[in-house]
């Protein structure tokens, strides 16, 4: 007689409630309500995501429009005005861009790259993982060997490789407009393997379960079994790795820009901002590095904490 059994017994006798009410009362949400750290993390995430999504409306300047920049505004310290009368809350950088605005726009780029790359990795990894886990045999071996090769190469190297190949294939004139997409594909391809591994394992477990047998007996198409039956049941761990993967993807993008590949400097991401800013570490213009770095840490930390919480909340044994 364990505690969770008790919970479910009680749940069984509880009257049906509205959807929102059910979400509010669900164990997952309950553990959320109980953890102040998680609530804080969610708020920070929400704030940063919201700020970056609405950057064009809330940012004081448009740092991505070169024509609007005044080089002579460069290196204005935080909370002061430049000679041309522009006020910079977080100071300005070496191009006279408002650091606050670049952070807002930069988070937008980082989040877009991070989220898209993670989604791409999830779609790819989950599909291959499902196929490997369900089909088994040669399909499984081939997919898993490819995953091994991928895992044996550091993600950064994989991303560098894909970035390099893309540069070769795409005509140079389109490089810059494609850069973000190349980044997404590169980081996504570098990270699919862990999703594939997780999903494969979970699929092999689910495949044995009787509800799958039941569906097979009645002749449900394997693809439908995979998508309708197995997929929803293996998505839990994917969600968890996904949140952590998102944080990783954002940092990976930063590291890639440190190594000199990444988005164009005229449309910098958080990572590019940090790369630019670290050049000013000793020269006194600390704000160019400090604010983007703090933002990146906050973002990564918040998303990681959410991932942690989700993992604990979704693991019935840790409840």
């Amino acid at each position, binding site marked *: 007689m364990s505690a969770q059994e008790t919970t479910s017994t009680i749940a069984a006798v509880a009257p049906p409630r509205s959807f929102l009410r059910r979400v509010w009362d669900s164990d997952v949400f309950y553990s959320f309500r109980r953890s102040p750290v998680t609530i804080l993390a969610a708020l920070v995430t929400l704030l940063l995501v919201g700020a970056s999504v609405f950057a064009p409306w809330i940012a004081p300047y448009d740092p991505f429009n*070169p024509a609007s920049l005044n*080089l002579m505004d*460069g290196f204005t310290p935080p909370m002061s005005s430049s000679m041309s009368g522009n006020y910079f809350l977080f100071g300005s950088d*070496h*191009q006279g861009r408002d650091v606050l605005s670049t952070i807002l726009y930069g988070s937008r780029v980082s989040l877009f790259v991070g989220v898209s790359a993670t989604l791409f990795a999830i779609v790819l990894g989950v599909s291959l993982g499902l196929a490997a886990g369900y089909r088994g045999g040669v399909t499984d071996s081939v997919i898993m060997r490819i995953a091994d090769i991928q895992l044996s190469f550091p993600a950064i190297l994989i991303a560098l490789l894909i970035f390099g190949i893309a540069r070769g294939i795409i005509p140079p*004139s389109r490089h810059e407009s494609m850069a973000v997409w190349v980044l997404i594909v590169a980081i996504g391809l570098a990270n699919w393997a862990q999703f594939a591994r997780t999903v494969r394992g979970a699929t092999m477990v689910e495949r044995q379960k009787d509800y799958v047998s039941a569906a097979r007996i009645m002749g449900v198409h394997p693809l439908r079994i995979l998508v309708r039956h197995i997929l929803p049941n293996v998505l839990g761990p994917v969600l968890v790795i996904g949140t952590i993967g998102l944080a990783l993807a954002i940092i990976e993008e930063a590291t890639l820009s440190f190594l000199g590949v990444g988005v*164009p400097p*005229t449309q910098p991401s958080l990572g590019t901002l940090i790369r630019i800013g670290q050049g000013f*570490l000793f*020269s006194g213009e600390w704000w160019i590095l400090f604010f983007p770095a703090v933002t990146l840490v906050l973002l990564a930390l918040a998303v990681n904490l959410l991932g942690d919480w989700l993992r604990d909340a979704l693991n019935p044994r840790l409840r």
Partner: protein
Amino acid sequence: MRKLLLTASVIALGAVVTPASAETVRWARASDALTLDPHSQNQGVTHNFNHHIYETLLNRDVEGNLIPRLATEWYIKADDPTVWVFKLREGVKFHGGQDFTAEDVVFSLNRARSDKSNMRQLHADVADVIAVDDLTVEVKMSGPSPLYPNNITNTFIMDKGWSEEHDVVEVQDFGAGEDNYAVRNANGTGPYVLQSRQPDDRSVLAWFDGHWDEKPAVTEIIYLPIKEAATRVAALLSGEVDIVQDVPVQDIERLSSTAGVKVETGPENRIIYFGYKFGDAPLKSSNVTDKNPFNDAKVREAIELAVDREAIKRVVMRGQSVPAGVATPPFVNGWTPELDAFPAPDVAKAKALLAEAGYPDGFTVTLDTPNDRYVNDEAISQAIVGMLGQIGIKVTLASRPIAQHSPIILNSDTDFYLLGWGVPTFDSAYIFNDLVHTKDGKYGAYNVGLYSNPELDAKIQSLGTEVDLDKRNATIGEIWKVVKEDRVLLPIHNQVLAYAMKDNINLAVHPENQPLLNTVTYGE
């Protein structure tokens, strides 16, 4: 408070370190010499390092003047304008004890112009090298070559016997997988002997007590390549190195204001400029698809008027540049202050010119820039993007490492680009040959925009053989006038070099960025 603490600690450390290391200098720069083989690579860092071990016939001082080194005199043979005569220094010995003779010079110059040598273009006009006697060498050129001595300031002299002994008569053919003794071992006549070397890590040089010159203040050099700029600066701040050669411009102020550290700055013999694609064919990266806007002189003028060189100097370069109106550094023969003048930025006029040229709304174009080659190269390009944006030209910035930028340049695969040009011969002809002359055969290798002016081509070719220097200089002036008026290139500035060091060390900035540490003196 932080600064105070730092100051105190640096002083404390300086007090401990200085007496002990008076003769040893720890010298840090961004990258290591590639090889010890003096003719294998034509690359500044490698030459700079090898200048301490090997010596050249002639060298350049910090003002850019030619000075004697292994050759004490050099002149064109009175009866034959195609022969250069070099009188060699007496009593010079190699590190291995061998005497330095004319045979060594003949051997070395021949080795430098051999097929596998990377120095051979500098000796392309040499027809033959003859040892007249032990201390006289004659270099026979294929035609009159008044400027040949400018080409040999990085051509080092090796010992013939040593080379034969170690089977390094030929320059290494690394493509064929051959290893070569000279890559890792050296026997020069220079002031320092190589003690140990771990590539990319550290090399130790000690004073050669058989050197012909007087004993330098620095008797031991520990050479430390530190790739990361922040780490390099940190190493100086923490007292772990004595001289940092490649100082990021943004750190100059901080370093200068740090007690115990000083920064020497000086102009480098290198011009930073933007280039355009010429010709009637439409640009690849532009929204103007029926013609080439850059081919219109008005557009080029508008662009020049949009560019604020002083702003770039003040903000991007932190004052560490010399804005330029002509695509040549001031050291170079042919430079004049009149040429170097540039117009004040005038956005309104630039816009008017653009409209006049038929682009009232501007146009789009992609700018190719390296991001790890020149001082703040990417930031300069970024600033240009902003400035051109203000007159309606929407520039997309394509920023790449030099490894990927170079092929684009060599293949003329760009519409608009940033490049830097050093002038090792200190003569304008070097610039004209490669940047202005029509891309054809041995000329115009870096005429990326494929500019072509047959009239200029003829004048440029005449420079190579003109022995009358006054007449030659006049021609140079004519060429520059056309180049400037035609706005073939858009010069921005000359780079300024900064060396940071302990404040008891004196080392002047060398325009070729090749300081010799045996010229270091100590004290205020």
